């Protein structure tokens, strides 16, 4: 086996050294009746060339070279090649959690930079080193609101990603966290009147997403005002991180749960992605997940360490803020490099391109007879249209032209009927928009 660095004589020498006759003696603790006597029934060992060939075939079955209008929580942005070049350094990807800061300053400093940039972009004071993803991050955000307020109920807008809501339902079920939902208005934003009724003196947290699942940008300040008047906390989830380049950050929120996949993370059929939570200074001790802080060494030299770990499970055990342990460090590094590449000017330009493409597409679709379902509130790079024809058939026709059409909303929002959600990023070409526009009538 090519990954094993021992010859048979090495093994025999070591066994002799230990004082056993055969390696099976080292497994004597396992009751004999359970020890396997034959091979596992899995395929034989493959050569590296065969492995590459096997996965190439799978990649081809997935088919490639399609233009896509899918967003809905996973966004197709260009990934500068510098990202993979750097994260492929063994010093980054074959290291572990930086428990020994003297030999992990690379990972620690990069996480500190990541936290700093996330704070800058979200308008929050502190950000953690990452969460699994946006869906679990949103659930953890509401759990954090419960800890901070000492209340138990949560209210969730139905315009939050439906799969996020499903995850929250799973997480909340046995934690004594009743959930209520509020719908959306004609403009696609959370229904403020309904929200006002749903939030009461027992509400710990309110979760909205902005831009929301329909692409509509919420009036975070107005929602925050309402929520804060009732003494509850506002958790704002952001699934399309690139929006932060041009959309005002949700600075009125108490907790921001960001899915940073848009920042240079491959779509990868849904993961791994990069959740991250950010909040106000005063709530930091109730925030889950790892945190990196600046300090000095014995000679006064600047350095970074994992800190405030007394919140975490390895010390607090069943009283911990969360059971989360492993995070998404390497994916956070991708995001960090992406944010560094685009930086102060590029993030804005990139967001402007997304905005322009989506608005061009919306105009073209309208011209061809599709109707914008939500009107009267701004959108970023996603929007919902209603077609007179069956959107399944429209998408099938587009697929023949190697175009993946919008996300059909009926599955999660039966009341929206023939509506579909379309996303344009900087990678969407005018030609594919024009081609799609011809079919959406």
């Amino acid at each position, binding site marked *: 086996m090519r990954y094993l660095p021992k010859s048979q004589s090495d093994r025999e020498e070591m066994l002799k050294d230990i004082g056993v006759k055969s390696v099976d003696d080292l497994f*004597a603790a396992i009751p004999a009746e359970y020890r396997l006597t034959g091979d596992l029934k899995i395929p034989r060992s*493959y050569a590296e060339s065969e492995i590459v060939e096997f996965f190439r075939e799978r990649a081809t079955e*997935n088919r490639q070279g399609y233009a*896509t209008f899918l967003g809905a929580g996973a966004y197709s942005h260009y990934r500068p090649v510098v990202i993979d070049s750097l994260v492929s350094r063994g*010093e980054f990807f074959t*290291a572990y959690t930086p428990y020994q800061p003297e030999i992990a300053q690379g990972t620690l400093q990069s996480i500190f930079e990541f936290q700093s940039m996330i704070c800058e972009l979200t308008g929050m004071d502190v950000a953690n080193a990452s969460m699994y993803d946006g869906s679990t991050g949103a659930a953890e955000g509401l759990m954090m609101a419960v800890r901070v307020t000492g209340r138990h109920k949560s209210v969730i807008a139905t315009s939050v990603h439906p799969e996020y809501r499903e995850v929250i339902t799973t997480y909340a079920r046995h934690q004594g966290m009743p959930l209520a939902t509020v719908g959306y208005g004609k403009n696609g934003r959370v229904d403020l009147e309904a929200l006002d009724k749903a939030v009461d003196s027992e509400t710990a947290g309110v979760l909205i997403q902005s831009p929301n699942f329909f692409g509509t940008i919420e009036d975070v300040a107005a929602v925050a005002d309402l929520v804060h008047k009732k003494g509850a906390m506002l958790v704002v989830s952001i699934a399309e991180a690139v929006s*932060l380049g041009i959309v005002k950050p949700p600075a009125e929120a108490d907790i921001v749960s960001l899915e940073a996949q848009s920042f240079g993370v491959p779509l990868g059929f849904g993961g791994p992605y990069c959740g991250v939570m950010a909040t106000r200074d005063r709530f930091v001790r109730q925030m889950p997940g790892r945190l990196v802080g600046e*300090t000095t060494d014995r000679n006064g030299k600047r350095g970074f360490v994992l800190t405030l770990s007394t919140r975490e499970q*390895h010390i607090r055990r069943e009283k911990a803020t969360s059971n989360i342990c492993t995070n998404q460090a390497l994916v956070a590094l991708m995001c960090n490099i992406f944010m560094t590449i685009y930086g102060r000017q590029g993030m804005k330009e990139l967001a402007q391109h997304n905005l322009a493409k989506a*608005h061009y597409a919306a105009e073209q679709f309208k011209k061809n007879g599709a109707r914008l379902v939500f009107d009267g509130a701004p959108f970023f790079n996603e929007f919902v249209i209603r077609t007179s024809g069956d959107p399944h058939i429209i998408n099938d026709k587009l697929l023949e032209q190697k175009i993946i059409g919008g996300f059909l909303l009926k599955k999660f929002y039966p009341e929206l009927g023939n509506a579909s959600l379309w996303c344009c990023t900087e990678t969407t070409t005018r030609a594919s928009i024009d081609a799609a526009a011809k079919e959406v009538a």
Partner: protein
Amino acid sequence: MGINDKIKKATTHISQNEGLIFEKSSPGKKAYKLPPLDVPAVDAAELLGDLTREDLGQMPEVSEIEIIRHFTRISTWNYAVDHGMYPLGSCTMKYNARVNETVARLTGLAEAHPYQPERISQGALRIIKMLSDQLIEITGMDAITLQPAAGAHGELTGILLVRAYLESQGNPRKKILVPDSAHGTNPATAAMCGYAVENLKSNAAGMVDMASLEAQVNEDVAALMLTNPNTLGVFEQEIHKIADVLHAKGALMYMDGANMNALVGKVRPGDFGADVMHLNLHKTFSTPHGGGGPGSGPVACKKMLEPFLPTPVVITKPDGTLGFDYNRPQSIGRVRMFYGNFGMFVRALAYIMANGPEGLRQTTEDAVLNANYIRKHLQGLYELPYDTPTMHEVVFSDRIQARKGIKTGDIAKRLIDYGFHPYTVSFPLVVPGALMIEPTESESKEELDQFIDAMKAVAEEAENSPEIIADAPHNTRVSRMDETAAARKPVLRWKPQVKEAELVTK
């Protein structure tokens, strides 16, 4: 003799200094170029009104070469598996094969959208199906979900399955038993699932104390969360009795698969009575640890728990193609959006394919051989609190060195000077001053011998010149960090330094 004389594996070497990226920023520098906009430009302020962002504040502005140098320089400050042995106990820091990285980045896989039509996702679905089938065979279970994002997330999923199953039987029960040697995620998970946690004592051999178990298991106990081999590297020899005691009272056995690297190809948890377990693809199945993640924590279970698995599950449809089944009325629901950390599935499957049945068995045997070799050579120099046979990891204590004031954390720091990443420090909690060493199969005899020599040299220093150890590490770019100050006045983000003149005017 100088303090570096006995150090063979490492030597001091120039590394570059590098500030924070923000400190290199200056207005107008760029590392990007967007293609010309092929649609009409828009006025953001007109479209977004007062929701338009004006400025991105302190985001950096740097060039591409500066980015390459920045991250390359700081990367060299890390120790990694690629440098050498990384014997963190219970973390299984094994070699991360390069082919795994290559295949995970193939365009058709890396650029697949999770919502693209199933008929153009057959390759991705096939990978999920194949990995699922092979992990089921490896664990001896009946069904699996790959959705959980990491080990602790797998625990959460597994205990939710237990709860859903027991509820379907009429009573979810009240408690989860957790051995005192368990990782902290176990009790934290049980609490998240609405269970009370009850501690279970280990016996003198470091195993589950059967008498305590029998006394504690009753109709209130939902499950025992058992790590096997446990965190002492000890296989629960009475595993079948443990399962019997639980099952007799209707309780289930949850197995934490963190230490599965000791078992693959030799024994299957499904055969010795585990009802549900998680795997850590980033441990046993070689997906990279990446400086702390991403992980992947599939959960395998017996038939009776299958109806409760998270949605969706991959099924073969009547026409022979693969697809997702969302119609699972008894499911615990989703634990994560989409289907899990797919990129890790690709890598894990590539690892299993590279090994085949013989390679996986040899891997396990080498991992156990390596741990026993270290044990044999360090026993006596370091106290071995439990004499029970060792599987893939060995736990010593610092009792001998502590007499000279040298603790496990100090030994760890001195080991850094010797060119090794330390073992896991002060865990498991059942061993005061623990040194938890897991070499994995990836170490050659030469690397192990160097590690043993280093540990011997440190033991000798502890005896004769403990001051060297107390101040270690000596050869790293930073010395011991002031962690107390970091926690007392947390500085968790960079902020521009305000110049003194500005402070005065304020």
